[in-house]
């Protein structure tokens, strides 16, 4: 099953998104992001702790804050057969040690399998990460994401913007 770029938006399910992140620290944010994924049944509960450790370790290597109020915490996770995606909004913003010093209000969470397999192609993953970056760099996306009314609207925004970025 290979998703084409024009369908990348479908990888984001409303149930795996949140408009109400409230944590004030990296640990609190990771707890929230993972709880959302477990509740949405896209991540099994027994992988939450390993995922949190992997995300924390990755953040130590270099901030996943990519600037302009966006962070893309993303790791390989043993036990996953296919990648898991979440998109969440923090209205107040949280310090994420981004190089531009700006707080993060938009989090793209990406957990991917450790190894290539029938549901995971590293080249497609790289393409997908480039697509996320193309989306995130659009000022309209970042602006509108802060004002959607519900999670379905958030995913609809991703779908609309994805037609724009091609």
């Amino acid at each position, binding site marked *: 099953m290979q998703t084409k770029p024009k369908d990348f938006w479908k990888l984001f399910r409303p149930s795996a998104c949140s408009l109400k992140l409230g944590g004030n620290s990296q640990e609190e944010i990771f707890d929230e992001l993972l709880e959302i994924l477990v509740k949405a049944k896209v991540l099994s509960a027994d992988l939450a702790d390993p995922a949190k450790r992997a995300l924390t370790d990755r953040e130590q*290597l*270099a*901030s*996943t804050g*990519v*600037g*302009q109020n*966006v962070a*893309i915490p*993303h790791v390989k996770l043993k036990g996953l057969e296919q990648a898991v995606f979440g998109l969440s909004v923090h209205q107040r913003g949280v310090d994420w040690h981004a*190089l531009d010093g700006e707080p993060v209000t938009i989090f793209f969470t990406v957990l991917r399998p450790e190894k290539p397999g029938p549901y995971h192609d*590293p*080249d497609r993953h*790289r*393409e997908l*990460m*480039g697509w*996320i*970056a*193309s989306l*995130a*760099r659009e000022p309209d996306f970042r602006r509108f994401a802060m004002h959607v009314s519900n999670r379905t609207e958030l995913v609809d925004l991703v779908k609309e913007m994805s037609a724009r970025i091609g």
Partner: protein
Amino acid sequence: MEIRRTVSVVNKQGLHARPCHAIVSTALNFKSELRVALGGREVNGKSILELMTLSAGLGTELEIRAWGGDAEGLVSAVEGLFSAGFGEELAS
């Protein structure tokens, strides 16, 4: 003064988020402007998001371009990152 240099992606995972972060982190130490080109596209080399949009994989050749008083130093520093594979696993 504009300096241009061609570099190659020699690390297996390509120009993913962490190498992009390394380029920007290094480039921010210099005043000169930095742009990175792939094919017909040119992006701001001081923006992680823009660099990530290149989706440059192993074996990709890019051109780094810098303008300003310390352009030479900037280009050398960025070239060094590429040739070291950003400290990551290189192609076997």
